[in-house]
């Protein structure tokens, strides 16, 4: 009886292996490079060559939908056409955070991709969980070609784990027509004080109803980070063990926002997370708000939708200019085989290379990631034509990486909730910050 059972088990396992094999392996047969286009020399000893030169397959999971997703698909297609020894299989996996959960689940099941996008604030958590491959040996100094301001979220405990790919930073977007009509400098406000004055001048009321607000921003952790940096502070201490937002630099942003809200010259768009972003952008397009904070990633879309002279500027300074960077980096997974890793590196390097990052930047609004790209003729020409695209790159001088200790994702939710309570007037600034620190401190690993 026992014996029979054993053999059944073996059969089932065998079947599973076959299934798994079928699931993963049948692509290779169809992906044989066609020999028609290439020279006849390689086509002669085809039998053995085909065996030896079977292309390496790697899976690439990305997290951008819509037009940006289509652009990624096209880039991968170009890569596959120009690299016959590698086949990259791209797959959209939902938003940044949906992709994160998928990757972690896949790692524990052993069917993870080889390359994926990771949101910059989560690199630390992924590296700490031993999910990511140390890229040092692969890069061999190649990381020098990337813009230093974008590499802040690439290192964890002195090791290189990620390469910048779709990188953004918040900007101040201006409706220059409205600014000019109000007799203001169309270049926009340079400081918090000016932002307040501008907002006041731009706000229009009809009776008790406000028809145009001077300023609006989604109450989002990203913009809070920006204002804390501008006030000369940080969200977390150097060692990532304590929250610093109960210092003056953590309270100043909230006092600034709540002050403007009370004055009725700023609008806090309703809605959760990205919905609030959508509201802010729509208000801006409809000219019901004259100035908003939003990402460089919105540059292209807003430019096409706006029927007015739209400009961008640095986020206004408090003690100094300052902004976080955002977006996602490309990473390689530690569990892949050596052969896959080699191919994965080739792919990552190609995707973030000057040649690819220039069109990528111009078509999406994300920043170019290499120094050469910024210096290139193509980019310079584009900047002359559309100076707005250059603002983000210039602002990098004042940019800081996002905090990325493990657990920051959860921590930012806590901080956001409290910030929103302060903004909605359900708590004083001191109460909100006090609560955030008390709850948040527990989340930080001691």
């Amino acid at each position, binding site marked *: 009886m026992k014996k029979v059972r054993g053999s059944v088990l073996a059969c089932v396992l065998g079947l599973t292996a076959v299934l798994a094999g079928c699931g993963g392996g049948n692509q290779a047969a169809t992906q044989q490079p066609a020999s028609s286009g290439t020279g006849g020399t390689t086509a002669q000893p085809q039998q053995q060559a085909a065996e030896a030169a079977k292309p390496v397959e790697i*899976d690439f999971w990305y997290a951008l*939908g*819509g037009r940006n997703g289509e652009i990624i698909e096209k880039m991968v297609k170009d890569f596959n056409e120009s690299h016959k020894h590698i086949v990259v*299989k791209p797959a959209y996996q939902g938003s940044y955070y949906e992709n994160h959960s998928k990757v972690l*689940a896949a790692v524990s*099941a052993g069917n993870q991709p080889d390359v994926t996008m990771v949101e910059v604030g989560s690199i630390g958590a992924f590296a700490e969980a031993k999910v990511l491959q140390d890229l040092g040996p692969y890069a061999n100094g190649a990381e020098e070609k990337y813009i230093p301001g974008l590499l802040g979220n690439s290192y964890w405990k002195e090791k290189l784990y990620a390469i910048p790919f779709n990188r953004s930073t918040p900007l101040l977007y201006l409706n220059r027509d409205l600014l000019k009509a109000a007799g203001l400098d169309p270049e926009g406000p340079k400081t918090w004080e000016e932002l307040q004055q501008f907002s006041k001048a731009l706000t229009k009321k009809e009776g008790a109803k406000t028809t145009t607000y001077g300023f609006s921003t989604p109450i989002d952790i990203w913009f809070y980070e920006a204002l804390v940096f501008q006030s000369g502070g940080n969200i977390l201490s150097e060692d990532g063990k304590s929250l610093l937002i109960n210092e003056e630099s953590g309270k100043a942003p909230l006092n600034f926002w709540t002050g403007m809200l009370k004055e009725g010259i700023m609008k806090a768009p309703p809605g959760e997370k990205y919905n609030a972003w959508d509201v802010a952008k729509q208000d801006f397009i409809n000219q019901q708000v004259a100035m908003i904070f939003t990402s460089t990633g919105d540059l292209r*879309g807003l430019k096409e*939708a706006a029927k007015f002279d739209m400009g961008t500027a640095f986020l206004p300074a408090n003690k100094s200019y300052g902004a976080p960077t955002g977006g996602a980096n490309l990473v390689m997974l530690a569990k892949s085989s050596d052969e896959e890793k080699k191919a994965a590196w080739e792919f990552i390097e190609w995707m973030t290379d000057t040649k690819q990052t220039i069109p990528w930047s111009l078509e999406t609004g994300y920043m170019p990631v290499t120094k050469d790209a910024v210096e290139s003729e193509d980019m310079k020409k584009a900047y002359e034509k559309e100076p707005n695209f250059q603002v983000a790159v210039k602002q990098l001088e004042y940019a800081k990486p996002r905090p990325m200790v493990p657990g920051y994702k959860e921590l930012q939710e806590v901080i956001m909730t409290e910030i929103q309570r302060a903004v909605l007037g359900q708590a004083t600034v001191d109460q909100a910050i006090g609560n955030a620190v008390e709850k948040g401190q527990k989340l930080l690993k001691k």
Partner: protein
Amino acid sequence: MRQAGTTAWKTIEGILLIAVALVFVFPFLWMFLTAFKTMPEVYQFPPTWLPESWQFQNFQTAWRSGPFLTYVWNSFLVAGGILVLQLLTGVPAAYAFARYRFRGKEALFALTLIALMIPAQVIFLPVYVELSHWGLVNTLWALILPYGASAFGIFLLRQSFMQVPDEVIEAARLDNASEWKIMWTIMVPMAKPVLVTFGLFSFIYHWNDYFWPLIMTNSQEVRTLPIGISMLKAVEGGKQWNVIMAGNMILVFPILLIFFFAQRHIIRAFVYQSK
């Protein structure tokens, strides 16, 4: 006098119903109208009601953004496959719970009900790892098998099987009908309205499910409509609401159609229950 009273009530009732219906229909109407607008018109303020010019190409744009035919086919296979399995497992289970006495019945039923309280997000990882071991991740089976039995369905069917009078079953047993036959030829037809209602609930839920298919599939060939539609949505760079709404129209259209045909049964089911 009393006549007049009832007509007055009827009128008020009618007005209330229409008001409530409007509240529920409004989002659908808005989706429908937005799906035909141009992008600038979507952002216009104050918003327009009827599109200035009907943009049918929004549907084309949505449809061409991916292998939509495959998505539709997969959605039908998954939602339909799940429903068939749920009925095959649910009907006998509900019959046993409703009509048999056996040891541990209460405990088993309690366990079934507990299954109702566990969200998919909690158990997805162990299920994912298990499916992965069987080599089923990234296949349609991964979307169908985990939902092969429905606690909700068992609960609903048990209620309606309990309402069938004992005499009917007694008579059938006297005629030497097998239990299997009693279940399928007597019980099931009597519970038809409930079956249709449950079928709709189940079908719509799995038709619209986003989380599970996203986690369990990696490639286009095995993906369902909701994922295809979520790909229309960019996080940054401005959303093309008109195209997204067109995609959503494609998503809800089959459901509306099914609903339209099954409406009669749904109403019957609830009337039946309240007898």
